[in-house]
């Protein structure tokens, strides 16, 4: 075995040992539901900002977007920008009132002043739909990438990722999950910084020099640096843009991160830190993609397989001295290890969100009507996280041949169509009622899933719905249904509860 392989395995081992140690420390502090779901509200704004970045920046972003930019130039760059834009809505409209009015789950906020059981049940359906789309995309991506990077078979890599996240979540709860995400964010940003320094030196700290090298490349007869290489249908692209900008604020696993900080002010600063880190990430990943196009070249990237996913690791190899050199192989092994940490951290965040829905919303509040002691709920939550872990490994193995890049945008589409309207109206609109919320959540999810099923991604040329991205139809539909059903049905007569929620969400009075 050569030095680089040993180094790569040592790095993987180091990441696993470090995260296990963090989980061990967290497990000693995790003794109740408040610890399990919300890390005892012990995170600072900066820590949670790192964890938000760790939760959000998936392997699809790190490897996939670098690949898209490297292969399609301008269109890949345009795609990379959309991922940060939704944070304006998160910061301005959602984060602080959300933090103030909920405890552990999205349904806590939505059901605050509506009828508990129907709303929690519908909210659970929405969160599970989002989490499932997101989870499958992560796991399928994880299996394929780990296979590509270190040659472990697809199924085995899923089992490794699955078992690790079950240990993190069931033993260490939200505290361990948060720290795994923080460690991942630091590793990822560090690795990218190193790559950026190498790139900057090669191109004399001048983006224009890099672009000069790229200006001769053409893809399908069009210049690489100009629009039109990947996206040909502007309406579909608008739909995708709308989905990304509105979907971010509807991602359940991201929103529950706000319950890990003690105050609305800390929630605010965590979004700002998150925006700084995430924005830097997407800007740098585009530069990495362009540098990969210039230094590795389209042919070699395509030859490595995975639809461009190897653009960033191959660039690391070139920067370190090239294939076969110790420097090159070590740099590539390092990037691969970081990609692995990236996957594990995102998946852990999804599992704990799913566990919260089943144990807190469905079991405790819908089935047992709140009559469960914290200790029992804590045990149920831990068992649930193991059940979710096992079933997602099975799902991931079954979904092996799915197009991952598209799957994750479906999670955003459900978030924007079914979650976002209900979250906004439940906080800000007095006349909003239970039928409006349940109707919007269920039909928003149903319309999104239906349009996906009859769209080109599933039905190919026989598609009834012409767009790959359903957002441009399903998002207005979700908002419209919420408004129309609310106005056509009787008010809930819970004005006192709206007053309470309103005061609590804007002032923090009574926030837990």
């Amino acid at each position, binding site marked *: 075995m050569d030095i680089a392989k040993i180094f790569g395995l040592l790095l993987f081992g180091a990441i696993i040992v470090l995260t296990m140690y963090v989980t061990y420390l967290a497990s000693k502090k995790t003794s109740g539901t408040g610890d399990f779901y919300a890390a005892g509200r012990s995170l600072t704004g900066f820590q949670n900002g790192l964890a938000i970045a760790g939760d959000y920046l998936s392997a699809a972003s790190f490897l996939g977007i670098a690949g898209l930019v490297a292969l399609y130039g*301008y269109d890949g760059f345009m795609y990379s920008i959309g991922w940060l834009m939704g944070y*304006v809505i998160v910061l*301005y409209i959602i984060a602080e009132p959300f933090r103030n009015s909920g405890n552990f789950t999205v349904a806590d906020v939505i059901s605050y002043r509506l009828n508990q059981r129907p709303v929690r049940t519908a909210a659970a359906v929405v969160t599970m739909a989002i989490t499932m789309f997101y989870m499958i995309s992560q796991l399928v991506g994880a299996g394929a990438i780990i296979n590509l990077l270190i040659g472990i078979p697809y199924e085995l890599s899923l089992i490794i990722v699955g078992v690790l996240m079950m240990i993190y979540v069931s033993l260490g709860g939200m505290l361990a999950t948060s720290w795994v995400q923080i460690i991942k964010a630091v590793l990822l940003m560090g690795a990218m910084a190193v790559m950026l320094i190498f790139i900057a030196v090669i191109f004399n700290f001048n983006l*224009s020099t890099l672009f000069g090298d790229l200006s001769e490349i053409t893809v399908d007869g069009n210049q690489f640096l100009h629009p039109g290489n990947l996206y040909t249908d502007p309406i579909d692209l608008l739909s995708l843009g709308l989905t990304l900008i509105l979907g971010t604020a509807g991602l359940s696993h991201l929103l529950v991160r706000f319950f890990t900080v003690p105050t609305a002010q800390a929630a605010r600063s965590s*979004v700002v830190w998150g925006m700084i880190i995430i924005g830097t990430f997407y800007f740098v990943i585009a530069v990495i993609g362009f540098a990969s196009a210039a230094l590795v070249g389209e042919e070699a990237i395509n030859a490595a397989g995975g639809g461009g996913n190897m653009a960033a690791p191959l660039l690391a190899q070139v920067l370190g001295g090239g294939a076969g050199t110790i420097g090159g192989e070590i740099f590539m092994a390092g990037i691969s290890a970081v990609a692995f940490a990236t996957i594990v951290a995102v998946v852990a965040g999804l599992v704990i969100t799913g566990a919260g829905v089943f144990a807190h919303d469905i079991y405790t509040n819908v089935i047992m009507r709140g009559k469960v002691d914290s200790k029992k709920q804590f045990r149920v939550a831990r068992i649930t996280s193991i059940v979710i872990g096992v079933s997602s490994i099975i799902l991931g193995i079954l979904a092996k041949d799915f197009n991952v890049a598209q799957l994750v945008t479906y999670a955003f589409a459900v978030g924007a169509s079914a979650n976002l309207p209900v979250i906004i109206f439940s906080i800000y609109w007095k006349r909003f009622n239970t039928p409006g919320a349940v109707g919007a959540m269920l039909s928003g999810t149903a319309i999104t899933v239906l349009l996906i099923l009859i769209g080109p991604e599933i039905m190919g040329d026989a598609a009834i719905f012409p767009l790959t991205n359903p957002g441009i139809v399903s998002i207005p539909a979700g908002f419209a249904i919420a408004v129309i059903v609310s106005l056509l049905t009787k008010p809930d007569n819970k004005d006192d509860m709206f007053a309470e929620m309103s005061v609590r969400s*804007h*002032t923090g009075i009574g926030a837990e």
Partner: protein
Amino acid sequence: MVEYNDKYEYIRIEQTEEFKELKRKKYRFIFPVPLVFIAYYLFFIVMSAYAQDFMAQPLLGNLTTGYLFGVSYYLVIWGLAFVYVIKARQYDKLVDEIIEKYTDGEGTV
């Protein structure tokens, strides 16, 4: 953290002029800004689709209008985050005044 459980006090606070003023000021800011920003972002996609020649004009060395336009989104969104933090501190002050005036300062009646 503020402990507060009396339902009727919430209703009383909700109806005060100070709280209504806080909501008015906040809503005038937190809704229009994201709406304008969404339109600004979608404009980029429309331009990339329908004004490709314009987006492909070299502007700064080999960097074209499209790239500088794209990078502007990062600067604008960070700018908006900064503006929000400044604004939110003003709201925090109004909230502190409400808590001071209508609760015993600890948040309880």
